[in-house]
């Protein structure tokens, strides 16, 4: 087991302590994971398929519950909060899913706006934010297109735009560059870096070594549900 703490000057956004996840009857997805991720940190989780990367993200956004251990996000045990408290926490967490989870019968703008509508943002603010994000991801001309008609790469960027739209304090991204070319990958990473600079914690799950090979951020490698390696990163 490997345990790493962020620099003492930064408060922890995520605390994962001795977390395991088992699926019946005998499938262990994660085992004895302990790690802290600081506020404003960009954190990479890498590993082969089936290593437990996506399971870890699902635990972090409370889509699933751990079999053992404690997960705290922004100081709250996410497995103990329910109802409106959980909803409020989720409004501060943006997640881009591997399968995108876009509404195929809604336009790109409507899909991105959903995460802001639930926090009752003003229509004008929503509209401006949507346009700005689409410009950053080179998708301005897709504003009124149905997401069902977009390519996989475009859908992936829309999913990312939705995750960051509400300016969350924690952004969880699952394979953000899986379907993208080099230019689009650079745009996506640029957007995520901007989010980090503005104070958001970003956790990126990926197996695309191009985006973490030369990074100065911390990288955690999972192997068969266990932490196989955890680089310290240059910035800590």
């Amino acid at each position, binding site marked *: 087991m490997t345990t790493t703490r962020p620099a003492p000057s930064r408060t922890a956004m995520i605390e994962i302590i001795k977390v395991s996840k088992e699926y019946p009857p005998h499938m262990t997805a994660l085992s004895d994971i302990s790690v802290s991720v600081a506020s404003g940190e960009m954190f990479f989780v890498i590993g082969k398929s089936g290593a437990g990367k996506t399971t870890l993200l699902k635990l972090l956004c409370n889509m699933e519950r751990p079999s053992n251990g404690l997960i705290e996000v922004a100081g709250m045990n996410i497995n103990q909060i329910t109802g409106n408290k959980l909803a409020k926490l989720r409004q501060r967490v943006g997640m881009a899913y591997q399968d995108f989870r876009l509404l195929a019968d809604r336009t790109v703008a409507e899909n991105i706006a959903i995460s802001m509508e639930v926090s009752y*943002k003003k229509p004008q603010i929503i509209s401006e934010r949507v346009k700005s994000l689409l410009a950053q991801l080179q998708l301005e001309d897709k504003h009124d297109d149905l997401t069902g008609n977009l390519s996989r790469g475009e859908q992936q960027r829309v999913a990312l735009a939705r995750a960051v739209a509400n300016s969350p304090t924690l952004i969880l991204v699952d394979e953000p560059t899986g379907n993208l070319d080099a230019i689009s990958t650079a745009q996506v990473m640029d957007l995520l870096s901007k989010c980090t600079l503005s104070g958001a914690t970003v956790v990126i799950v990926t197996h695309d070594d191009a985006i973490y090979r030369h990074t100065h951020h911390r990288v955690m490698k999972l192997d068969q549900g266990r932490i196989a390696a955890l680089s310290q990163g240059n910035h800590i």
Partner: protein
Amino acid sequence: MNFWFSVLRQTGRNLRQTWPTQFMTCLTVSLSVLIFSFFYLVYLNMLTAGDKVSDDLRLVVFLEDEPGPEMQEQLRNKITQFDPVQEIKFISKKEAYDRFAEQLGDNREVLTDMPTDFLPPSIEVIPFKNFRSLKQIKLFADYLATIPGSQKVQYGQKWVERFYSFTQLLSIIVLLSGLLLFLTASFMVASTIRLTIFGRQEELELLKLVGATNNYIRTPFLLEGLMQGFLGSFLGLTALYTLFQWFIRHFSGAGFLDIIPFSFFSPGIIATILLASIALCTIGSYTSMQKFLRV
């Protein structure tokens, strides 16, 4: 953007996407309201007519001989022993003759050769207004038939019996159509909401994940139920009012219908039907959400 603005926008979006189902549900609710309120309106008007009939209800006891003052007092006591009554009138043979002649009007000459005492004397008993059930009237009539000297008791048995049977049948129909309204309003709305939930499972799941509160997800469905209840009952009642006006224009003042003073529902009853329909549809929507919407 506040909560209600978001919720109303979401409701509008739902209605746009599922309007054919919503329209059919609204139509079903309005038909149920129309059927129920139609029978209820007929029932209420029949009760009013029943009140009028009861006002005119009198039991006539035909006597063998004309009673003297002392016997009249005895008979009066005997009648009130069964139940207090509003009025007891003794009609002598002569009075009976005069009434009959008056009823004949211009044809009274047919009585010219008849003796003035050919009609039997009688007692007219007018019961109190609360004395209205058919069973009570029958029991009273049977009792009056046992009074010494009584020959026959008349109160328009057949007509009264038919009228009361009809009112009873109507009350059963009102109950059944009320049940129909209850079933359609609650179950049809519940099914529509369930279909909407199934059709939008993916979106609802996403809303939860991006931090929508339970109220944000539930309220649009409750509003849909409420709107279906209101629109359905409003349409049903409007259709009934139109029918009622048509009926009044074409049939009032004609024959026996003239004895019934037809009237539409009072504002209180209209409000009750609207509120009941809204409540049923909202409850239907709520139960459906509790069952199928895991929020």
